[in-house]
């Protein structure tokens, strides 16, 4: 049976999560006895030019909806259009990114269609009549296997959980119209501003260097930033204690009430490892901790730990990583 992937754009470019949902839809269509992957691409004029990128990951059909008023996300128009597309075609599954935008969009669509939604899924299995989805619960302290019966089963996928896999398809473009006049929407996005120092987002960075109270003062975050810069592909995170004190913006917070991240490498600098922080990063692939207290909770979680004064260790590590990167 056919499957749908809802693509996501930011400033006219496809986000990586778009390729991830197409990959998931390809996998699901194959598992459900073979079928076409449709990708729904909603945006401003000219956005159809991006369709070939979706074809590279296995989209057979890219349904393009272009409208001058849809250069930015419009929750009500996007939801009405996705719901209309799901109504008009018999899909086995529909995949959304569990990004900030997707987590807004998917439940609106599921609510409008009164369909089940497995949200923030890290893995899934699909058969002809049942979809099983893995979803972390209790801030990652337990893992639920969810069961959705019937079609279409809607899923939002945690960014990075299923990497994009190229599977080139002989893609064709079909044009369609927004299912709601943007002028009639009661909610409108009027501005999209890039936050300062947000070069690499915490959810997308393969490496995160994070700092805690052990840094002693806001100015010392320079050490964390320099280490992140040495990696070249790292974002900077922080603990709640640090963002509460205003050393870092609230949007940098990793933890139960902040961002939930699972990078390839997480470097915790001067972080003792409060449960609320561990909840946000315990699914990282490799964890490194630098802390003067060998008994701190983070040291027990870390794959590799160095005990000692971070003010001596971090600059040395920055130097060492620069050397490694220079040789690559």
């Amino acid at each position, binding site marked *: 049976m056919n499957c749908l992937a809802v693509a996501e754009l930011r400033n006219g470019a496809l986000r990586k999560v778009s390729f991830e949902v197409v990959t998931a839809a390809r996998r699901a269509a194959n598992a459900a006895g073979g079928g076409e992957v449709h990708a729904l691409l909603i945006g401003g004029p000219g956005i159809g030019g991006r369709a070939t990128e979706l074809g590279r990951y296995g989209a057979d059909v890219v349904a393009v909806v272009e409208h001058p008023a849809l250069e930015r996300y419009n929750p009500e128009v996007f939801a009405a259009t996705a719901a209309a597309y799901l109504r008009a075609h018999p899909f086995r599954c529909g995949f959304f990114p569990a990004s900030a935008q997707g987590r807004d969009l998917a*439940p609106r669509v599921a609510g409008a269609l009164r369909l089940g939604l497995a949200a923030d899924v890290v893995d899934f299995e699909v058969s002809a009549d049942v979809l099983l989805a893995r979803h972390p619960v209790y801030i990652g302290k*337990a893992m639920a296997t969810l069961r959705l019966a019937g079609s279409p089963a809607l899923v939002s996928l945690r960014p990075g959980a299923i990497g994009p896999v190229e599977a080139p398809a002989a893609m064709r473009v079909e044009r369609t119209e927004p299912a709601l006049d943007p002028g009639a929407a009661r909610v409108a996005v009027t501005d*999209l501003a890039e936050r300062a120092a947000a070069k690499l987002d*915490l959810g997308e960075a393969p490496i995160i260097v994070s700092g805690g109270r052990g840094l002693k003062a806001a100015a010392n975050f320079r050490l964390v930033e320099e280490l992140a810069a040495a990696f070249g592909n790292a974002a900077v995170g922080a603990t709640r204690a640090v963002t509460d004190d205003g050393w870092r913006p*609230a949007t940098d917070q990793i933890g139960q009430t902040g961002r939930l991240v699972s990078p390839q490498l997480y470097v915790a600098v001067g972080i003792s490892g409060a449960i609320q922080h561990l909840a946000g990063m315990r699914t990282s692939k490799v964890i490194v901790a630098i802390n003067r207290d060998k008994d701190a909770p983070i040291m027990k979680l870390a794959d590799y730990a160095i005990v000692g004064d971070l003010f001596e*260790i971090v600059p040395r590590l920055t130097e060492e990583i620069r050397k490694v990167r220079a040789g690559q």
Partner: protein
Amino acid sequence: MKIAVCLKRVPDTESRFTIAPDRVSVDTAGLKFDMSDFDGYALELALRLNEQQGGGPGEIVVLSLGPEGTQETLRKALSMGADRGIHLACEVVPFDGLAIAEALAAELGAGGQNYDLILMGRNATDTGNATVGPMTAAILGWPCVTAVSWLELKEGKGTAHRELEGFTETVEFRLPALLTIDEGIARPRLPSLKGIMAAKKKPVDSRPAALGEPRVTVQAMELPPERTGGRIVGEGPEAVPELARLLRDEAKVL
């Protein structure tokens, strides 16, 4: 303003969880329960909105769906300053956000209530679904803004900020509306002694929750594999070259 705040009673996430004998839930025996973090922000925002309004006609109604113990969460909200509570009784809170949204929409959409705002947390800390808010709004046919990190209301219109990956989105909307609230917008107050005393006299109505049929069910619940961490590479800056070697050759993350 008349504001409804939907609260969920959830296990304290500091707890050590074990799997219940049914293998599809966690064992709740001995767990402490409290208002879900984000719902606390939603309630605090509601209290501040009505305080800023200063003495005008306003009412804050708190709703919670769940078993008997849910009334404790409602009492806490009343002690923080909410005016009255509605307990939507059910033995077990369904996992499925849509089943919950149908019960909330049936209550909130009943005629003659005229809410200006419905607030709830961005997500509950137990299921982590973040679906009930937008689903409730979809069923009610209300405008909805999710994960609001900043809010301004003026003459029947609102402006909100949402934090996306690396970007801040500004959203304008019309009232009445349903908003889900992100962390940091307003740190919840502690109930005062006076508030606790006053809460005892405030009304809490209890009625059966008109739950929808769940479309999503839990087939299995497991604890994640324990991390086998705790390897100390060394002490002080002398350990750094060995760490770099391990990251490159063993962990292969460089």
